[in-house]
């Protein structure tokens, strides 16, 4: 199990356009990736390819989230997703 932390950089938090971009990026992977707020237990983690899950997570600008994935290429995949979360997606 690979695990990475990321700080949400988008000013509006992880909804609207940033959530669409992130969910689409996870959906393009063959791996299953979960996301949870740092303070939440791992079993509450949600499907990161679901825009509805991302929206219900309610992660705001500056919140820290934990991404988890298992399998071949998990480390690389998480690395690129962390970069995505740490970019202000709403500004682009």
């Amino acid at each position, binding site marked *: 199990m690979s695990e990475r932390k990321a700080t949400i950089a988008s000013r509006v938090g992880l*909804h*609207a*356009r940033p*959530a*669409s971009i992130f*969910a*689409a990026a996870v*959906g393009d992977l063959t791996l299953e990736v979960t996301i949870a707020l740092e303070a939440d237990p791992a079993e509450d983690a*949600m*499907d990161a*390819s*679901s*825009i*509805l*899950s991302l*929206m*219900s997570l*309610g992660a705001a600008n500056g919140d820290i989230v934990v991404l988890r994935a298992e399998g071949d290429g998990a480390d690389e995949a998480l690395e690129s997703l962390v970069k995505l979360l740490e970019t202000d997606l709403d500004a682009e």
Partner: protein
Amino acid sequence: MQNFTGVGVSPGRIIGSVRQMPKPISEPPAGERLDAATTPEVATAELRTASKVVQTELQRRAEAATGASKSVLEATALMATDPMLIKAAVKLIVTGTSAERAIWESGASVAEMLHNLGGYMAERATDVLDVRARIVAELRGVTAPGIPQSDEPFVLVAEDLAPADTATLDPNKILALVTSGGGPQSHTAIIARALGLPAVVAAAGVDALTDGTEVYVDGAAGTLQVDPGDDERTAVTAWEHVAASLSVFDGTGTTADGHLVPLLANVGGAADAVKAAAAGAEGVGLLRTEFCFLERDIEPTIDEQVVAYRGVFDAFPGKKVVVRTLDAGADKPLPFLTDSTEPNPSLGVRGYRTDLTSPGVLKRQLTAIATAAQASSAVVWVMAPMIATVDEAADFAAMCRVAGLKTPGVMVEVPSAALRSASILTEAEFVSLGTNDLTQYTMAADRQLGTLAALNSPWQPAVLQLIQLTVAGAIYEGHNKPVGVCGEAAADPVLAVVLVGLGVNTLSMTARSMSAVGAVLKSVTLERAQELAQIAVSARNSDEARTRVRAGLPILEELGL
């Protein structure tokens, strides 16, 4: 040749082909099971295929869209195949529920979850419900709900249009609006006038027209004709010339003998106000503040409000802007003000009355209006909607003065306010007649019901008489306090003449109607308008009132109105 007759609500003559608005998707019955021949595996595969088709269609529309609607459509497209939505539905299918019912229930619980999160998320709940309806339509093999998509402009035929439909209605793709339901003051009529589209409402039977049928629509006469011929084609060409000459208002509302009747605009925000100013409006007679905040779940902050109001004030430097305080309730609910469980919202806590249930909102709004007014050169007046008694008028005027607003007024929409206008005007500095609600309450007929369209006409002599009484009260009060009209009646060039004849001082309307109203008004003297008003008030019924006044205005024929 087949003809349909309804009520003409927005003038114009066009020929085009029909597109029916698809029927809303009905709820699959609770407990609906998979049929014997379908296994859960097959149903699951069908659901996934349907959701993929919906996603592709929404993505296609997102590519064609721009700005905010593009990102909303992109997010909505992702929702269509969202694991959270689909997994919950698949769980239900495995237990034997039909695919349609399963996605319906799954969509409902997701929408509820978003709704409970509040704010931006709650607004997205509607998108989930839209996606759900599209998936059910795809599973059933019927047309998706919403305004039809077409490359060619068309005549939109519907039962009635809801306020939400306006957001997706592209005026460049629509030639005319024709509805089987709705009345002269329904949303369809309001939308059509605002967009300048010919429109006919309450035309029974038009639901049966097939897509692609060529029809002639006359929005002044209120008729729709199948298989138009040469006469109709000539009428369309003639209308095009008239429309070009009617599109300009010179900026001064006056009768033929120079009696000034300022023509003001009804606006919903800064964008409307800028357009209205460019169209020659002499001020704003109605700023519908709730339209600045219709999408909101929580009360806008004072700072946000100041920005919204400033945008309107700055479009009219040195001119009058009448601000109506939040008119929430009935057909315009605002989650932070209205109780959606009321059995009879039209007679419920709406307009000024929300100050009883949500004290503080109105006071903060008045502070915001005063702050915005101080920073601009517009002459700002404020009025409260749904005032029924002189005590309410006095309380509102006192709140305005505390906030530093010097010209408090009230709307006359409730018949009691029309009857008591003399005493109301001892407290308020002006009144403005909201003819849509005044008609609905006088005739006890719901604005949205097509069946009651004839009752729901501002031409009803009883309504005209209440307007006359309101003016008489203002004269009796003795200080020449102004009486305006800001309902749809003011946008009807024929009725506008009657209103001026009844003694109304200003007319406020959708900016597009100013040129037609201005042109007809300029063709009559004040004395002639007063004679026509007398004819209308003494008519037996609304049809007679309208017909007799029309007969007295030869310019209508000339202009094709």
